[in-house]
């Protein structure tokens, strides 16, 4: 498999703010790649650099081997971006919008493919409706359609399901997964971690403009292996000192990563000895959210998974 996206040492400053701090990343053709991180981590800036909307201070990026600045025409032909903001051109109908977008890429008579996209995104009935009159969810679908008119081998979705109802979300993922199976490389940024967990085969986590974790989804989950014990103490009491270093905090719960169930006994014993009272206790399987919270709090489990 060839390289779909190559990002080398990209730095971007906005005034005194360093939005991207030397990001390097390679994504292979056919991957379903997740880009995660809190707000302001640099996800959208990175995507904008890839799309040529933002020019990096240093470093280089390429799409399917085409440099996004030196060879921007070829790079942009190979990239479809679904922007995060719900933007639309109020002058045109859905079909006009898609025809115009096709024309920008040098495609005339693109109606067969446009019809197919409309069909797949459940937009056929709205084809001749003015953009202004569509609901938010419908506008979102048109944004996806616009990114696909030129059949780009690499598709970037920047939080496409923010504020979208469940039905559309599932329909959208169904369609995107099909495109991925047909060979399109998909890059997704999302706040819904379960989505990334279900869809992405590899994940990078960004924090303050740096990649802090990069591995396959299954490795990331495995590294955080087994189970977590979540508990809350009465009146939000602090943990005894002996346990403090082993736990992280998430939504007012103390979270312990366990390698085996026999560890539970020890934890509970220490709490009892310290005279604390447990208000709530849950035992759960690791999910991406735990990994995410851990990474963002600086817990080190990037063993060997350093960003290339």
């Amino acid at each position, binding site marked *: 498999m060839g390289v779909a996206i190559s990002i080398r040492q990209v730095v971007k400053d906005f005034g005194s703010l360093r939005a991207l701090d030397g990001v390097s990343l390679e994504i292979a053709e056919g991957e379903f790649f997740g880009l995660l991180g809190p707000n302001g981590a640099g996800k959208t800036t990175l995507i904008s650099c890839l799309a*040529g*909307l933002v020019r990096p201070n240093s470093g280089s990026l390429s799409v399917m081997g085409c440099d996004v600045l030196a060879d921007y025409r070829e790079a942009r032909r190979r990239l479809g971006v679904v922007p995060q903001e719900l933007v639309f*051109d109020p*002058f045109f109908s859905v079909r006009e919008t898609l025809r115009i977008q096709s024309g*920008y890429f040098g495609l005339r008579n693109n109606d067969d493919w446009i019809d197919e996209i409309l069909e797949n995104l459940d937009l056929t009935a709205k084809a001749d409706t003015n953009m202004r009159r569509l609901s938010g969810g419908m506008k979102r679908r048109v944004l996806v359609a616009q990114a696909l008119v030129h059949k780009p081998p690499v598709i970037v979705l920047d939080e496409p399901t923010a504020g979208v109802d469940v039905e559309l979300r599932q329909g959208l993922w169904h369609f995107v997964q099909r495109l991925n199976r047909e060979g399109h490389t998909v890059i997704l940024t999302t706040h819904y971690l379960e989505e990334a967990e279900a869809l992405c085969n590899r994940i990078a986590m960004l924090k303050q403009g740096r990649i802090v974790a990069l591995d396959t989804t299954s490795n990331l989950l495995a590294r955080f292996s087994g189970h977590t014990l979540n508990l809350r103490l009465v009146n939000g009491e602090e943990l005894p000192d002996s346990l403090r270093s082993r736990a992280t905090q998430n939504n007012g719960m103390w979270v312990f990563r366990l390698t085996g169930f026999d560890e539970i006994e020890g934890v509970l014993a220490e709490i009892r000895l310290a005279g604390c009272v447990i208000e709530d206790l849950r035992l759960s399987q690791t999910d991406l959210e735990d990994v995410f919270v851990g990474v963002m709090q600086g817990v080190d489990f990037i063993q060997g998974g350093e960003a290339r």
Partner: protein
Amino acid sequence: MSGFRTLLYKEVLRFWKVSFQTVAAPVITALLYLLIFSHVLDSHVQINGVRYTAFLIPGLVMMSVLQNAFANSSSSLIQSKVTGSVVFVLLPPISYVEFFLAYMVAAMLRGLMVGVGVLAVTGWFAPLGFFVAPAWILVFAVSGGSIMGSLGMIAGIWADKFDQLAGFQNFLIMPLTMLSGVFYSIHSLPIFWQRVSHFNPVFYMIDGFRYGFFGVSDVSPGASLAVVALSFLVVALTTLALLRSGYKLRY
């Protein structure tokens, strides 16, 4: 050049879909100017041996061409910037030269369309005599519309908000066009203001355009054309430099 063609088509379709505001409204405005000024002045004023109403008509036509060319590119850009839909033209493989040409030509076409409309409704009010040199008419209309279309791009790219654009329009474009000799011959002005008028490039656009109708003008049409060509070069190169650098479009 498919990007250029599509972007031009989109820009023309954009104003055409709201042609009631973008074409019909400015024609009505120009008609009102003509009705009022010719009512007051037609029997009292003659300029260069031409009756006032006849003198006024080419000026109004050209003023409408210029103002609407500016309005088209500037409002299209600021609107798509404010709503964010500008990404649709930034993501595709469209070069900055194609981008420039598409917005400029679309603006010029809207200017010409309004100009033809103004001429069609005002032409009845005076025997224009006329079309002494149609080539000059066309040359000045096209180049004037292109300059203002290009200047509109600069304003649209520079402005972050609608009120900044309105400032550009009210404090620069309006005075330049209103004080360019649309309503009077600059020879009727005190000598100081005649000199000032010679620094206004719009004066040469109007004067050259009017020459095409009557064969008389304040300045020779060749000299006007030279000034207009130079203005075009300055404005177009500035716009191209802005687009190339990505100023306020690509960060």
